């Protein structure tokens, strides 16, 4: 007869095996491939090659992901703050009904939406021209880095706002009411009283969004076709065009490093929560 511990390990083993085979093994494989020559000796030449060919794209990727996270945070704070502290029931109700829509929309659908909406002759420019806000000749396409950022912010804001609004709903209302009674504006109550209390939730949501944006292949491929582009597209190109796994894996290790800082914060928080619950 199995002991309870042995039974538990037997029950969890098949799931762990799948994760080990399809995540840990390829992860180790990508690390080895990035640091070794075909004969198995240690080398950094793939990183030199990756840097030489794609240093611009490395910077481009970091700037896009950081900018998207900052803009997502600002938008989510405004939305969650309005939902929590808003006094006009009509505005709060409308916002509540609207803001969640992109939450479950797949990235590839969001990319196709933005591909048409932000194009030179897309619905956005057409609306501005029709309203007389813009001359037809000054219409430009936003299908470059701006399009990628817009798509990421559009897609991720509901997720961050949802978690943030949930956290805000569970903090003590009395402090916020006291702040309002003492004459602080709603913006000030939000930024100085409410936000510090829900900062951990905001950070976790942003870290998750950060890693998600680093992983998405469809958005940079579909929204901004040409150079410069994000590292995900470069990796796919190295594989599909040259079968060059070494350089692609070196670029992969660079994306791990970019997300490493973010992931460490996330895992640390996860562990802390486990320790306290």
């Amino acid at each position: 007869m199995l002991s309870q511990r042995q039974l538990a390990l037997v029950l969890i083993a098949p799931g762990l095996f799948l994760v080990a085979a399809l995540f840990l093994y390829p992860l180790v494989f990508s690390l080895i491939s990035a640091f070794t020559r075909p004969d198995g000796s240690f080398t950094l030449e793939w990183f030199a090659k990756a840097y030489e060919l794609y240093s611009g794209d490395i910077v481009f990727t970091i700037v896009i992901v950081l900018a998207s996270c900052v803009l997502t945070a600002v938008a989510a704070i405004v939305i969650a703050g309005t939902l929590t502290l808003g006094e006009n029931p009509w505005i709060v109700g409308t916002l509540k009904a609207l803001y969640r829509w992109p939450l479950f929309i797949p990235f590839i659908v969001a990319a196709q939406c933005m591909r048409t909406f932000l194009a030179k002759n897309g619905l956005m420019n057409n609306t501005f021209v029709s309203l007389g806000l813009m001359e037809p000749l000054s219409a430009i396409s936003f299908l470059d880095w701006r399009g990628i950022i817009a798509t990421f912010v559009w897609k991720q804001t509901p997720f961050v706002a949802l978690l943030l609004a949930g956290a805000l709903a569970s903090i003590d209302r009395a402090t916020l009411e006291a702040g309002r009674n003492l004459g602080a504006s709603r913006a000030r109550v939000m930024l100085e009283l409410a936000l510090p209390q829900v900062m951990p939730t905001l950070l976790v949501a942003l870290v998750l969004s950060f890693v998600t944006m680093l992983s998405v292949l469809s958005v940079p491929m579909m929204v901004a076709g040409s150079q410069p582009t994000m590292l995900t597209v470069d990796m796919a190109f190295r594989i599909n065009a040259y079968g060059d796994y070494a350089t692609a894996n070196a670029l992969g290790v660079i994306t791990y490093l970019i997300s490493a800082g973010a992931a460490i914060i996330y895992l640390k928080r996860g562990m802390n929560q486990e320790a306290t619950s």
Partner: protein
Amino acid sequence: MIRLASTARAALAAALLTAFAFVLIGPLANLALWSVAERWYTPYKLPVSYGTRYWEQVFRPSGDAMASLGTSVWIAVLTVIVALALSIPAGYALARLKLPMRSLFMVMFLLPQAFPSVAIYINVARTFYQLGINGTVFAVVLVHAAHGLVYSVWIAAAAFAAVDKDLELAARNIGASPMRTFATVTLPLAMPGIIASGIFVFLESLDEFTGTFFVGVPQVITLPLLLYNAAMGGNYQVASITALILLVPSVLFMLFIERFLRADVLAKVGA
């Protein structure tokens, strides 16, 4: 004076809300317009002629889209079966049994979602290629299941943890075997949460692009890959219609999720 200020505030709020609605709905409206536009070119601000020609093309029984829809649903169903078969025992072990290094195991299931996945998928594809299973439904299902496990395991663990232990003890006291207690008491009570996790995994699989792009090509063409091919080939109508098909389950899910994922289960996710 105060009245004027409050009117100005209300007008400003209304303007901001309108701008927000435009940003949110505009891209979706553009997608819907493209799906019924038979001809649309510069400098026309709206489609030149409307029609359902492309819808008929997409929904023709022999069309690519119907085949892709079938492939996508088939893969998603298999993914749910694999993920649940692995996560029901794992979730039960994590929630109810004494498990050494429990938090490490919880994090293990999270890792595939916490890493940039493209570099992982290219190496999975290389291994699958050597094994000769690249481009098969089986390979795509494995990749989707590994990715979906974090949802199914974490939610299953939370669902089992939310089941009242006294009910299990009562069943045991009146003579039910451990297996029978699990099958007739614990599992039925955890079922709403497990169904919710299954829906999550189903949707993740249906929407998944990156893994299928590397592991499924060229034989397995799911709806997201069809969308991508159509969009890159410049066929905006087919791409938009495919995108709208992909939106249906997402919207249904958003409307009904709260019925399955109860607050008491949600509170235990990740705990």
